[in-house]
């Protein structure tokens, strides 16, 4: 199939070996095609893996951990082949699952020490690492209490701490903000950002909520029905579109008055909400759009409130691309 190749691979090339690289990765469960010839490269920093439930995010993570064999294709994690070097990959990767995974009768402190040991750290080093990562994720005195009594936010922090316990080179975070209230969600996203940027650990973070990832991720990979819909730098998603949004005092009448005048002046304009969206002039047009808008508003006697550049949001792109894609259901 004609795969959509990631647009931005420059960042990956800079770091040498990519954190994750897949070639034609396919997983066919028989009844469901979970991954369909996926080509994707993930570099350093934070990469958001976005897709609706069932888009293949969890399947991809399991294959990357070497827990699930792909039907076809190949993949490398930190330069190690998933087919032959599963144990090496799992020694260098941290995994935070989406579902519950904490024993209720053990304290976070004991649990993170144990999990660090399960990655090969000696006991003393495991204790030191556990204290460090629990501090980083923000679990204070409660770390000595059994985890069964934790709030969702505290559980998510403990899950994240065990993923970091062995100082991995890459962490796979499956829906870390799931079930969190807005304040905890912001804290968790800030933590994710710090792991990718301050800790120097590559992060692949999944979410079915598109909006939250654009704040913390450097790259975004969009999956839909097991196929790669788009992969590019977050900034590409969020680039200005060239369109200007203009708001004037008054209501729909005033808005349409300005819109029609600008349209007649040769700037394609459409009403959008309570503002006028003015598209950029044709390439040969040398007129200054900002001046034209100001002058037109003055001529019409309208009170100009603001002129601002229009930005893409990840949601917009996702919506456009999904609308264009063949939807089997």
């Amino acid at each position, binding site marked *: 199939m004609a795969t959509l190749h990631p647009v931005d691979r420059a960042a990956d090339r800079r770091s040498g070996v990519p954190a994750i690289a897949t070639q034609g990765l396919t997983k066919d469960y028989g009844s469901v095609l979970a991954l369909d010839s996926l080509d994707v490269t993930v570099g350093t920093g934070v990469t958001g893996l976005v897709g609706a439930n069932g888009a293949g995010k969890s399947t991809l993570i399991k294959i990357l951990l070497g827990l699930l064999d792909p039907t076809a294709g190949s993949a490398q994690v930190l330069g190690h082949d998933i087919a032959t070097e599963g144990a090496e990959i799992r020694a260098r990767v941290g995994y935070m699952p989406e579902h519950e*995974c904490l024993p209720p009768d053990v304290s976070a402190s004991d649990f993170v020490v144990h999990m660090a040991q399960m990655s*090969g*750290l000696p*006991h003393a*080093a495991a204790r030191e*690492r556990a204290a460090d990562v629990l501090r980083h994720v923000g679990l204070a005195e409660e770390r000595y209490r059994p985890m069964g009594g934790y709030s969702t936010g505290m559980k998510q922090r403990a899950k994240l701490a065990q993923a970091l316990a*062995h100082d991995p080179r890459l962490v796979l975070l499956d829906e870390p903000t799931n079930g969190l209230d807005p304040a905890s969600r912001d804290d968790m996203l800030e933590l994710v950002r710090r792991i990718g940027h301050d800790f120097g650990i590559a992060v692949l973070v999944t979410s079915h909520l598109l909006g939250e990832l654009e704040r913390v991720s450097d790259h975004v990979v969009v999956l839909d029905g097991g196929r790669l819909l788009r992969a590019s730098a977050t900034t590409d998603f969020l680039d200005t579109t060239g369109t200007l949004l203009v708001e004037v005092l008054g209501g729909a009448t005033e808005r349409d008055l300005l819109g029609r005048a600008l349209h007649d002046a040769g700037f394609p304009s459409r009403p959008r909400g309570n503002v006028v969206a003015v598209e950029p002039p044709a390439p040969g047009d040398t007129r200054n759009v900002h001046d034209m808008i100001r002058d037109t508003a003055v001529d019409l006697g309208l009170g100009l409130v603001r002129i601002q550049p229009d930005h893409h949001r990840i949601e917009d792109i996702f919506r456009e691309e999904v609308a264009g894609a063949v939807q089997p259901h």
Partner: protein
Amino acid sequence: MPSSHTEPRTGGPAGRAGGVIHDIGYRPYAGPRGGHGAIARSLYLTGVRNVFGLGRSGKSKILPFALLALNVLPAVIIVGVVTFIGLSSLPLAYPEYAATTTILLGTFAAAQGPILFSRDLRHGTISLYLARPLSATAYALARWGALATGIFAFVMAPILVMYLGALLAQMDAGEQTTDFLAATLVSLLLAGMLASVSGLFSAIALRRGFAVVGTIGTILFGYGVVAVIQGISLEQDQERVGEIAGLFHPMTLYAGLVNVLTDADNAITPPTGAAMEVLYVVVSVLLALGGLGLLLLRYRRLATR
């Protein structure tokens, strides 16, 4: 905190003087990392501790230690009586002890198996183990080993008390040591069989209650059924039937093993003839290893699910 947060960061050890916790940032780990052997050993040791509730909440220590105390108590009493009266031999042979405390042993095996197996499956912790270097097979092996060790320690604790008591009472040391070592051997086989039964139930039933009921049902109720068959066959002078029936339960297998491998005897219909004796040993080993094999298979399936 008395010192203000605007205190300049002086750096070095002097910076700690004011009791201010500075964020020293993320520290990467550059130290040694053990291989699979070291990880498996660590998992095994944690498992042995967990069987007795150590490293877990306070109330999870109650049951294993209460059972252990009940299990050791008769041995302490025996030792006390023996030293007080000055008997020349123990009233109960070492390997017979486990047969008389089957209820305690069965309860211990049934209650503690789920701690090592059901708990990880029920709470999803298994996926964290599987995402780490150790394979599913090595994980199951370490868990089984920990459970078998816990059960073995449970069986051996009163026997050790009796052995030390016998030595203190100045019984024949050579004879006592030989009997003690023979009891150790059959206890190892018993621990292996019970760990397989309890482990298998615990790895299949995710709810602790089902695993406990299944294991207790098998060990205690099943024991009763087989013992009744053996009793009837003895009454009817059909010992062979009882001998064959004994192959179908770990406790009657154990009784047969005791008869074959030690001087003691508490089997209702002990195996007779070399072929049957060998069969008892082979079936015991097969039960322990076969159960372990099924456990490994179960975890290999889980890993690739």
